[in-house]
């Protein structure tokens, strides 16, 4: 085991203690496992709550702060959080203007957030929900329960967070969040498997010299296993897969996302190739974000997410954000 951990069982609370130590601007409740903006609830503002299995950091806890999420609920590694966390988070951040749940489309997340929504609504919270399902890799499968939610989560959280910060009402925040979620598309590639603490080793076998095209953020299989490709070839495969399902030809926001263990040096090189392919396909890129944002523990690889953006989305994207993981304009 090459893990910087104490024991697999305490990985999540250990990380939350570290977050608490590093980020006095956040309220980190280690016992209830929620990360909350220190100044929540913010009067007059719709609140955003997200969450999901741990292992994808900075998603979601690292996106809590002004201009983005009001609270995040980290589950165990690769395991959806429980409804109690979401209910506690909603209670902590609701100013009376209502709460938007941002949910990645995985059975566990959907079920747990649904239960939480019911409970929170019983307690009088006005709730809306947006489901992120941007991963084009497995739409080919006839038996998939919809597309998986991956990189677009960041776009949804940032853009809806900015709109909420402007004071927009719940319905509009939810509508815009859905617009982003429904128009964004992603495609990921793994160059190595990730290892979960509980497994203590790689989640799947990926011999050196092979890659998994269309991998999921928990190491779920994608479209095909291939012999190693160059960065340029991978960029082309990923961009073309995304463009094929992108429902608009507006200029795009581009996320060139590292899976965790791919050096930033390589990721920037990949970003250059992604831009080259997009230019060849005549897709204008309005903004680019490069880095490790929606990770899969120590998986090597990268994903590309594109979100067609009109003037309003660009304005909201550029709006100030101040979180541990994403920060500009403030």
């Amino acid at each position, binding site marked *: 085991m090459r893990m910087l951990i104490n024991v*697999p*069982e305490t990985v999540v609370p250990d990380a939350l203690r570290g977050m608490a130590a590093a980020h006095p601007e956040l309220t980190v409740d280690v016992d209830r496992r929620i990360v909350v903006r220190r100044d929540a609830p913010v009067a007059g503002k719709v609140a955003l709550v997200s969450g999901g*299995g741990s292992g994808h950091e900075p998603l979601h806890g690292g996106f809590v702060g002004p201009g983005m999420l009001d609270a995040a609920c980290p*589950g*165990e*590694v*690769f*395991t*959806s*959080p*429980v*409804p*109690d966390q979401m209910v506690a988070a909603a209670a902590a951040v609701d100013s009376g203007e209502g709460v938007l749940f941002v949910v990645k489309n*995985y*059975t*566990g997340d959907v*079920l*747990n957030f*649904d*239960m939480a929504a019911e409970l929170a609504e019983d307690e009088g919270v006005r709730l809306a929900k947006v489901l992120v399902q941007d991963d084009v890799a*497995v739409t080919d*499968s006839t*038996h*998939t*329960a919809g597309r*998986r939610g991956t990189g677009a989560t960041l776009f949804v959280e940032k853009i809806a967070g900015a709109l909420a910060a402007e004071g927009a009402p719940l319905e509009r925040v939810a509508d815009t969040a859905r617009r982003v979620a429904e128009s964004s598309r992603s495609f990921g590639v793994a160059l190595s498997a990730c290892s*979960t603490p*509980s*497994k203590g080793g790689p*989640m*799947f076998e990926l011999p050196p010299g092979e890659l998994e095209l269309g991998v*999921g953020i*928990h*190491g*779920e*299989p*994608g479209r095909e296993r291939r012999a190693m490709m160059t960065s340029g070839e991978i960029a082309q495969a990923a961009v073309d897969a995304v463009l094929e399902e992108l429902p608009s030809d507006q200029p795009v926001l581009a996320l060139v996302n590292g899976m965790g263990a791919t050096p930033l040096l390589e990721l920037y090189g990949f970003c250059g190739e992604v831009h080259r392919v997009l230019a060849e396909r005549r897709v204008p890129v309005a903004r680019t974000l490069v880095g490790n944002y929606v990770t899969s523990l120590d998986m090597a690889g990268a994903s590309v997410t594109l979100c067609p953006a009109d003037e309003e989305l660009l304005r909201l994207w550029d709006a100030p954000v101040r979180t541990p993981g994403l920060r500009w304009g403030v």
Partner: protein
Amino acid sequence: MSGKVTNGAGEGTGGSAEGWDAAFFARWMRAAADAVDREADRLTELDSAIGDADHGGNMRRGFEAVRSELDEGVPATPGSVLMTAGRKLVSTVGGASGPLYGTLLRRTGKTLGDAEVVTGEELAGALSAGIDAVAQLGGAAAGDKTMLDALRPAADALADSGGKDLRAARTAAEKGAEETTGLQARKGRASYLGERSIGHQDPGAASAALLMAALAEAGGEAEGSA
């Protein structure tokens, strides 16, 4: 410790029961906690083949919490034992299995109502209602390679025996779980594997078989056959 009330002190024979009390249900849950703890690594191993390698940890965490809750005090009725356990699973497991198993136990418990003693037939009917709720919540059908493929045959076998043969339920669950190996996943994370999911047992079906084995164990402890 009580259990099957006709035979007293939890020494049920598993056969012609007149009914089961709260202590029996608590014993079931504890036996499930033991089984899940013992088999956690195997469940995770199965989940790592076709899922995300957390099912063992999920089930262990949930049932340990159930055990602790019962250690604080056993609720008065069979229904409330299962509803308490189900709520605890929902609150501690997460993932897909938390809401699904939580719903299973909560709905089964709710269907049992507030009787202090329930018959085998009542249990069989309630279990079936619980399984319906799981199917509704998760949208899965028989043959989709999920926990349902172990739960449904078990409930059917129990019902077929007039609610008497807990071991038949266990055997049916184990058979159902084993048979998921040949199925292709259509729900949950394993569904992303498509045809590649064939050849691996479904982890949730495996844990469902453990749950049914624990039921048989709770009912048949005296026979030493568990």
